[in-house]
């Protein structure tokens, strides 16, 4: 399977990586104490690691090339297992019912700490689904998604702090403000081509964060806003455990609502316009779709979900500061969408759960979390651009007579 030539290339590549990582991985200097630390073990690790990765990639390529070619009729086989499973209405009802029961009893089985982590994971599910509208369906790479999240969080924090407005009152306001911010940003920049759009949204996200950090009279600067009230249940104050439980059910309800809306959107006239726009703008405009309006709709709808989640985030943590809204946050949400599968609702849900829960439970690895996220983005694009669970394209089959 591995010829001598591939092995030799592997060794050469490993040596190249040892050279490449030499100054950063091996040498560590302390300029104040004037000590040089030589970490030769790292060079060895890099060499062996590279060689193993190379072998795995070669093996995968080998398998790909020697796979029997798929028959043309079996297009159904390319649909992932989950999609096939839920295509059947009875199985779908069973699965959803089962999941709902598990979700309902989950907080009673595990500790409050676990429930709290689950709330975070569910928030990322909804954020991922929101970004999925923009990136996955409409194909607009938005790198400043966290800005809308910040708009939502700060609108709750400030309205609560200054005017004492409650969670449920601010929830629609936060979402609305974020959607307006989306339109305000989207209106000028949506004329731009994909890659420019990415940078402008990135810049916009940073502007929002920098303003929040520096405009102390408005946002209290880097020290943030604390003592934000948690959502009250029918006017009652809840205990800490009680409010976490309450928050959990709010999030479950939200997730179901989001999935429902996104699912309906996907099959709507608007959703199909997004997908068409993603595939070919010119053809799409020729078919009479208003490019500007359609893109704006995607942008503001995505922002709306981010705003809602921002409000929930502020209510959950009761303290926010600009450090929660860095570019890395946008990058995490983007990783969720890319890993799960752009445009695929099931994929995004699984992607969010994997990416948020895995580092929580593998504490030893959490240091390497962002490293892994970066690597995931690259690897997914190269080996599996459709994501873990590819979205199902609407297909019509030619009936043979």
């Amino acid at each position: 399977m591995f010829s001598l030539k591939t092995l030799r290339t592997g060794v050469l590549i490993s040596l190249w990586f040892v050279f490449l990582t030499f100054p950063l991985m091996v040498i560590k200097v302390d300029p104040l104490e004037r000590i040089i630390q030589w970490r030769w073990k790292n060079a060895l690790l890099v060499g062996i690691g590279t060689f193993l990765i190379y072998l795995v990639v070669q093996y995968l390529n080998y398998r790909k090339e020697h796979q029997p070619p798929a028959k043309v009729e079996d297009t159904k086989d390319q649909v992932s297992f989950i999609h096939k499973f839920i295509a059947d209405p009875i199985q779908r009802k069973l699965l959803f019912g089962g999941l709902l029961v598990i979700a309902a009893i989950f907080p009673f089985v595990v500790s409050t700490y676990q429930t709290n982590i689950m709330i975070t994971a569910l928030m990322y599910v909804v954020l991922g689904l929101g970004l999925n509208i923009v990136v996955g369906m409409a194909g607009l790479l938005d790198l400043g998604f966290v800005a809308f999240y910040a708009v939502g969080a700060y609108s709750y924090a400030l309205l609560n702090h200054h005017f004492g407005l409650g969670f449920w009152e601010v929830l629609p306001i936060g979402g609305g403000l974020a959607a307006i911010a989306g339109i305000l940003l989207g209106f000028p920049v949506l004329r731009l081509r994909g890659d420019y759009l990415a940078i402008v949204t990135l810049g916009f996200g940073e502007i929002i964060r920098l303003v929040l950090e520096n405009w102390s009279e408005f946002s209290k600067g880097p020290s943030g806003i604390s003592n934000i009230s948690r959502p009250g249940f029918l006017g009652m104050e809840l205990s800490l455990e009680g409010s976490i439980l309450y928050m959990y059910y709010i999030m479950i309800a939200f997730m179901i609502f989001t999935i429902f809306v996104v699912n309906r959107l996907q099959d709507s006239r608007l959703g199909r316009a997004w997908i068409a726009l993603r595939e070919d703008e010119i053809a799409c405009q020729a078919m009479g779709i208003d490019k500007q309006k359609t893109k704006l709709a995607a942008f503001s709808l995505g922002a709306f979900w981010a705003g809602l989640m921002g409000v929930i985030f502020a209510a959950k943590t009761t303290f926010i500061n600009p450090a929660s809204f860095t570019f890395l946050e946008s990058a995490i949400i983007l990783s969720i969408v890319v890993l799960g599968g752009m445009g695929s609702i099931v994929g995004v849900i699984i992607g969010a759960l994997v990416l948020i829960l895995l580092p929580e439970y593998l504490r030893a690895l959490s240091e390497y979390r962002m490293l892994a996220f970066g690597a995931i983005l690259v690897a997914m694009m190269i080996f599996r651009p459709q994501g873990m669970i590819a979205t199902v394209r609407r297909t019509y089959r030619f009936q043979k007579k």
Partner: protein
Amino acid sequence: MDYFIELFCSGLSRGAIYALIALGYTMVYGIIGLINFAHGEIYMIGAFTSFIVATVLSILGFPLLAIVALSGVAAAVWASAYGYTIEKIAYKPLRHAPRLSPLISAIGMSIFLQNYVLLAQTSDFLPFPELIPDFEFMEPIAHIVGSSDIVIFITTAVVMAVLTYVIKFTRIGKAMRATAQDRTMAMLVGINVNNIISATFIIGSALAAIGGLLIASHIGQINFYIGFLAGIKAFTAAVLGGIGSIPGAVLGSFILGLTESFATGYVSSDYEDVFAFSLLVLILLFKPSGLLGKAETQKV
């Protein structure tokens, strides 16, 4: 008036450094039409490599001139090696993929490299050794123009001159221009396009590394995160001048450097980065093709 000249000079040296980084963006964009998001990280790696080499050499007791020369060469060599490898891993397999794919891959690469340096080295700010001494002949005007401003400016000017020569008059420069104009046609006339793309990444990375060395010794400290901001600003400069155009990148960089310098000097230093981002948004709104760029016409 002194204050004005001081701001002007610091704006120029700022612009010179942005230009070194922006050239890498613009050259790569000109040839493969990709925004190389990881370019800021290359610059950061260049700064880190020169930091490590310079500190090791100074501990071993080398003379200053040798330290400057060796750390500069090391930064350029390793940054180019990174640039070359990144292109081979993250961009080459995606050359025929949809537009969004290489962009996402580039963002992933950028996050990966940042955290790689963070884990391999440290998250602290590191004091960068002072490589540029205060010249004696600069004494009378030292309160207006720092010695490092002058060194930055002269180095950049020399580098630009060499780059212009390479692109205008050498074989490889000609091949680069041909590839940028029409890749398929360049292949037909026998240009090895893959080599040219690699060469572009290598040259761009080396320039960014020199920029990294200069700015690190100018500011006096480095951190794994410096590449992100510098990358966006240099990109802003490249877009301002018209991405894909080399003189445009230089012009844009100087405009950005001066704008930032005056804005922080006369308005407020808190919003230093906001000015750059706002400038970027404004250019893209009113003149997306930049000052010297060609407007792109879409053919159906």
